[in-house]
Every structure is written in structure tokens, then in C-alpha cells.
């Protein structure tokens, strides 16, 4: 019978650690407080060094605990989901109307672009009033999740 030797196991663990480490070294996410907004609230620079994954972003879009974008926006790319919200504008063709930097800015904190909007800021971790303790100091989406979401909404063209 062949069993995995101690050395072999150690090598695998070390390899896994190295992979994790290397991705963080190359992709230190920008902290919410360090984001540079342009004049109109756009954000030019990606929040991480890892390209956004549109498939992952699509899942975040409908996830009620994450983006929950469908709660407020119609999105014809998701006709399989019932009950699209009507609070915000329809997102069909949204990538024809806005560029990546603008959409990133809207995702991070749309209040810089649209004063008084009901839309939550998805990448802001301070300045809230009476925030529930378990969310204090957190952002609704992680930096990578914002990039994934952006990659997905950039596919919404007409």
C-alpha cells in the first residue's frame, strides 16, 4: 500500500502557502480609505491586481447577502430570476452608457456621483451612523468582489 510520506505532505503544504502568499504579494488590495476618486466620483485604478471574474460577479449580483443588485435593478441577463427590483435604473446596456472607471466608482460609493442616492456604498468601511456591530469596520463587498462585479456589469451591453 502506498501512503503519502511526511516530506511529501510538507511539500504540498509549503506549495499551497507559497501560492497564497504570491497572490497577496502581487495584489495587495487598496483599502477603502485609500481609494482615489476622480472629479465625478469615478475610480480609475483597479482595487486589486487580479483581473475581475465576470462569472463570479454574476453570482454576487443576485446574491441577497452580497451585491443583491437585483433587489433594485432590472437585468435582462437574469431572466431566470423572478422579481427584479424597480428602485434603481435598469442595467440593460449599462456598459454602453458608463465606462469601467465610472462603474467602479458607482460600485465603491455612488454617493460621490449621485448625491442623495439610496444606493449603498459597497466598498466603504467607516463613517456610518449606528452601524450594527457585526458589520462595523467591514465593507459589503471585498475589493476582489468589486472587481468581479465590475467585470460582470461590463458585459451588460446592448
Amino acid at each position: 500500500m502506498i501512503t503519502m510520506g511526511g516530506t511529501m505532505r510538507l511539500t504540498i503544504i509549503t506549495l499551497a502557502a507559497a501560492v497564497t502568499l504570491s497572490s497577496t504579494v502581487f495584489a495587495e488590495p487598496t483599502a477603502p480609505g485609500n481609494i482615489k476618486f476622480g472629479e465625478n466620483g469615478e475610480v480609475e485604478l483597479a482595487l486589486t491586481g487580479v483581473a475581475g471574474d465576470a462569472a463570479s460577479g454574476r453570482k454576487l449580483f443576485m446574491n441577497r447577502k452580497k451585491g443583491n443588485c437585483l433587489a433594485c435593478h432590472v437585468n435582462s441577463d437574469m431572466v431566470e430570476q423572478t422579481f427584479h427590483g424597480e428602485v434603481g435604473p435598469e442595467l440593460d446596456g449599462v456598459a454602453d452608457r458608463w465606462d469601467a472607471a465610472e462603474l467602479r466608482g458607482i460600485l465603491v460609493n455612488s454617493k460621490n456621483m449621485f448625491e442623495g442616492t439610496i444606493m449603498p456604498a459597497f466598498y466603504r468601511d467607516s463613517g456610518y451612523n449606528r452601524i450594527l456591530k457585526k458589520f462595523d469596520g467591514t465593507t459589503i463587498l471585498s475589493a476582489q468582489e468589486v472587481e468581479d462585479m465590475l467585470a460582470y456589469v461590463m458585459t451588460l451591453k446592448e
Partner: protein
Amino acid sequence: MNITSLLPLAVSIAIVAGFVTAGEDSTLTIDGEVFVTKAAAPAHLENVDEIFSGWTFRLDETQALQMDDFDNPAFVFVDQALDQFEMVEGSAGKACSSCHDSAEVFSGLRASMPRVNSAGDLETIPELINNCRTERMGAEKWKWSGGQMSAMLGLIGLQSRGMPVEVAIDGPAASFWEKGKELYYMRVGQLDMACSSCHEDNYGNMIRADHLSQGQINGFPTYRLKNAKLNTIHGRFKGCMKNIRATPFKEGSDEFKALELYVASRANGLSVETPSVRN
């Protein structure tokens, strides 16, 4: 494009709209009594012209449940409160009925609450009930949103059913009302929303499968299909705040009492619907 080619489109729009706005134009009647479910907004409302009962935003099936007291599940709890009304409790050996002939003596109370008392405090019905229990009966207080309290609130509120909401907002109530108004427009929580974000700016819109109402409280306590019990006003405020990831104020707190007065005043002119049915 001719008219006939537009017809199917018009029909499908009508179907969608009919679903979403089910019953906005229907009339709430119970035992032949007609309720005011929409009215001109009271003068103090700056951003809304017309006020609507939450009943008008619900689907036909939910609306129907409230139109017949035998179908209305809230009456199970109202019946429990009728028994409780006669129940002797506490060191003084009294029941509610020892001092109050019947629940009917509270006719009109629900329509004017909360109100400022002679001591200058803003008071609510749960506080009146608990005062009676501790001061006159020598009994334990009830929890603000407990089963006994919400049932008794249902019984007392029922005595004003059909009467127009008419809470005072001037004189000694003015400072409480101003504080409540400030809270209504205050953004809170990680979702950073105020009551007004949904219930003033977006009523009538769908938020996923929910049809946003004006957040009127003229039907409270309300039986919610969601949790199959009577829900108090402060209990509902608390739930809303948690939904937007905010630390709620405490039930019975000065903040929620002031907010209750302000929100109640936004329904001045609608009928009391206690005990209502919502989803």
C-alpha cells in the same frame, strides 16, 4: 405600426401593472363599513401629496384576509386578549375589567396615540397598559412586543377601527414630533438608508419581490403572514433597522416613541385598521 400590433403589448403591460399595484383602487370594507385607505396628505407632509394605507399595496389574497374577521388570523389573538381582560392578576387581586367595564371604553384611544400626558411625557398604549399592571394591579410588566401585550394592543386598537387617525402634533407634542421627523430622515446602518429612502422616495416600487408601501402604521398591531403573529409598531421599526444593518433603538425608547408619533401623524386622515393583515 398599427393599433392592433400594439394591443398585445398593452395587455401584457396591464397584466404586469395589475399584479404590481393589486388593489390600489379597491375598497376596503369590513362588515359593510368602508375604510379610508387613501386620502389627501396632511398639511405637514412636504414631499407627498397622497397617503395610502399599507393595505392598498398588498396582493388581493392578503387584502381579502382583512376584509372578513373570520378569515383575519389576528382575531385569534384578540380573543385571547378578551380572556386576559377578565383575568385577575397581581397583588391587588384585580383584572382589567375591575376598573374598565369592557374593552369598548377604549373606543377612540388608538386613533389619537401616542400623545403627551399632563406630566409632559409622550405616552404610548403599551406604557398605559403596563402602568395599570404595575400601579393598579400589582402585577408584572409585559414585554413590549410579547404575545400578551401585542394581543391586548390588538383588542384595544380594534375599538377604534374605522375611525380616522388623528394624532396631535402641535403644542406640547411639537418637540417630540420634530425629533421623530429628524429620525425619519436620518440615514443609518451599513446600507445607509433612512425611513424616507424606501417609504417616501420609493413607495409603489418593487424591491425584489416586495412592493414598497408608505410604511403607514394605522393598522398596527398587524398580523404578518411572514411570522404568523401580531407585530407591534416598535417591533417593526426594529426589524426595519436591522434589515439595513443598523443598531436598532430599543422598543419603548424615547427615539422610537418620537418616531411613532411622527409616523402616526403621516397617516392622519386614514382609517385605523387594527388589527390589519400584511405579508
